């Protein structure tokens, strides 16, 4: 490989990892919900869209930086998630319906309603939050004058990535070090055993849906400085989260992180070497490959095989 070729490859992988970090955050939210409630939340991307519109309004009306809007959007989405779970999804979980997967269908409906509401309020125009640091970047040659290749690191992308990392770290702390976090994991692993331990399983479901929504809402705030926004954007991110959840092995948070990074890098590679329009195809290829070759999720490749569960 010539130096320029190496440069392109490294730059592509770097961008892919940054994107992957954000994807991971989206995927973790869906994975948590999947683990505890055993349903795929197909309104996940739409919840992210809601988070993005919150950031957009805060920016354009109150001039609040999108990164700061996390502190408003995340609690707002937490609340929205709780309400959705408590008053829509939970009642449907309880009835024996003709279609067993009717909660999943319900989430599709919730997603449609959310994007329709967004269209009514904001029209279907593309929106952005033109922050003044949007095009700022760091260059490898700034710190290493003699570098044979040039790499750049966009400021908003790296800030978004760092936030994603911090949120993931905080979530890890919550899930492993607090009793409530452990109770959520316990509910995902064995609901009845959790009940016997005194876990209010029903409440854990509500909290988890809120938490998953807050996570994807935060991801929305991290995406908006580097992306554009329109009411139907949710669908593509629901699909992304779904692919990551499958890749990660339904319910594994570590799997979702690895899955997010893999998907980010793969999409970045397809857009560089096959053209922008091919990124969705890349996603689909990963999805099929995951279903066929690692149906248990990538983490199953690293953990000891066990029977039962």
């Amino acid at each position, binding site marked *: 490989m010539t130096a320029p070729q190496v440069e392109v490859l490294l730059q592509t992988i770097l961008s892919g990892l940054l994107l992957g970090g954000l994807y991971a955050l989206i995927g973790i939210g869906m994975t948590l919900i999947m683990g505890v409630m055993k349903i795929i939340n197909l309104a996940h991307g739409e919840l992210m869209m809601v988070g993005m519109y919150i950031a957009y309004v805060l920016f354009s009306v109150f001039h609040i930086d999108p990164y700061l809007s996390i502190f408003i959007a995340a609690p707002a989405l937490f609340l929205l998630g709780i309400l959705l779970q408590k008053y829509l999804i939970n009642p449907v979980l309880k009835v024996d319906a003709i279609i067993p997967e009717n909660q999943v269908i319900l989430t599709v409906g919730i997603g449609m309603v959310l994007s329709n509401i967004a269209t009514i309020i904001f029209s279907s125009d593309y929106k952005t939050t033109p922050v003044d640091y949007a095009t700022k970047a760091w260059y490898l040659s700034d710190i290493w004058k003699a570098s044979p290749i040039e790499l750049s690191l966009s400021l908003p992308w790296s800030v978004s990535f760092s936030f994603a990392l911090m949120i993931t770290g905080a979530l890890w702390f919550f899930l492993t070090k607090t009793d409530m976090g*452990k109770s959520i994991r316990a509910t995902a692993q*064995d609901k009845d055993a959790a009940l*016997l331990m*005194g876990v209010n399983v029903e409440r854990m479901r509500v909290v988890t849906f809120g938490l998953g929504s807050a996570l994807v809402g935060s991801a929305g705030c991290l995406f908006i400085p580097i992306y554009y926004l329109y009411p139907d954007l949710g669908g593509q991110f629901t699909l992304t989260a779904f692919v990551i959840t499958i890749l990660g092995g339904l319910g594994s948070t570590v799997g979702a992180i690895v899955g997010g990074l893999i998907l980010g890098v793969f999409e970045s590679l397809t857009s560089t070497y096959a053209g922008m329009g091919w990124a969705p195809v890349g996603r689909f290829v990963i999805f099929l490959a995951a279903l066929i070759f690692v149906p248990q999720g990538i983490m199953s490749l690293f953990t000891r095989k*066990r029977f039962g569960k």
Partner: protein
Amino acid sequence: MPDVMPNIMLDIQHLNVFYGDVQVIWDVSFSVAKGEVVALIGANGAGKSTILKTISGIIRPAGGEIFFDSQPIHTRKAYSMVEAGLAHVPEARRLFVEMTVEENLDMGSLKGAARAGRSNTKEMVFDLFPRLKERRKQIAGTLSGGEQQMVAIGRGLMSLPSLIMFDEPSLGLAPILVREIFNVIKKIRGEGVTVMIVEQNVKQTLAVADRAYVLETGKIVLEGTGEALLDDEHVRKAYLGV
């Protein structure tokens, strides 16, 4: 049952339980006094686990009443039982297999006094099962069957229960481990904890039990002291194979 029994800890009255349309528990009544070890024995499918699950609130009875410490508990939420002092070590252990040994023990002590005394109780559990101390950071799903049973028992004890119910704690264990588990059960009763035990290992169970009930297809057919049942003709034929 005689109403004269002193200090009744658990009192089951005319319990009827269904799975869908199928009735599996028929008018079952029995009681456990404070400090007793009471065994419930019966063949596969007799309904032993169903009774324990109904006591701990995972299944709702169609009829009958359950009193724990004189309080009706058959209408209580399942998750509030452990706080009331009732621990259930379920059949097949039901550990949180992706958590460490220590996290599993933590899950047993989420509320009240159990939460406050978590680290002390944990040391007590480690004294009871030194092997768990060595393996405290190991993922529960990777433990051996015997070790898993120790975690399940330890997790139950972590709630500082006044009554602990074991569902087939010796299932699938080597004889030496079975003996260890029964020794631990004796120690637990020595601490003043009331024990209810469901077992198919009839001989050893009757040896540690003060009293026992024999359950056949959802009905109690016999009751008596452990010793008396060990000598009972029907029990010897049906459960001891002699």
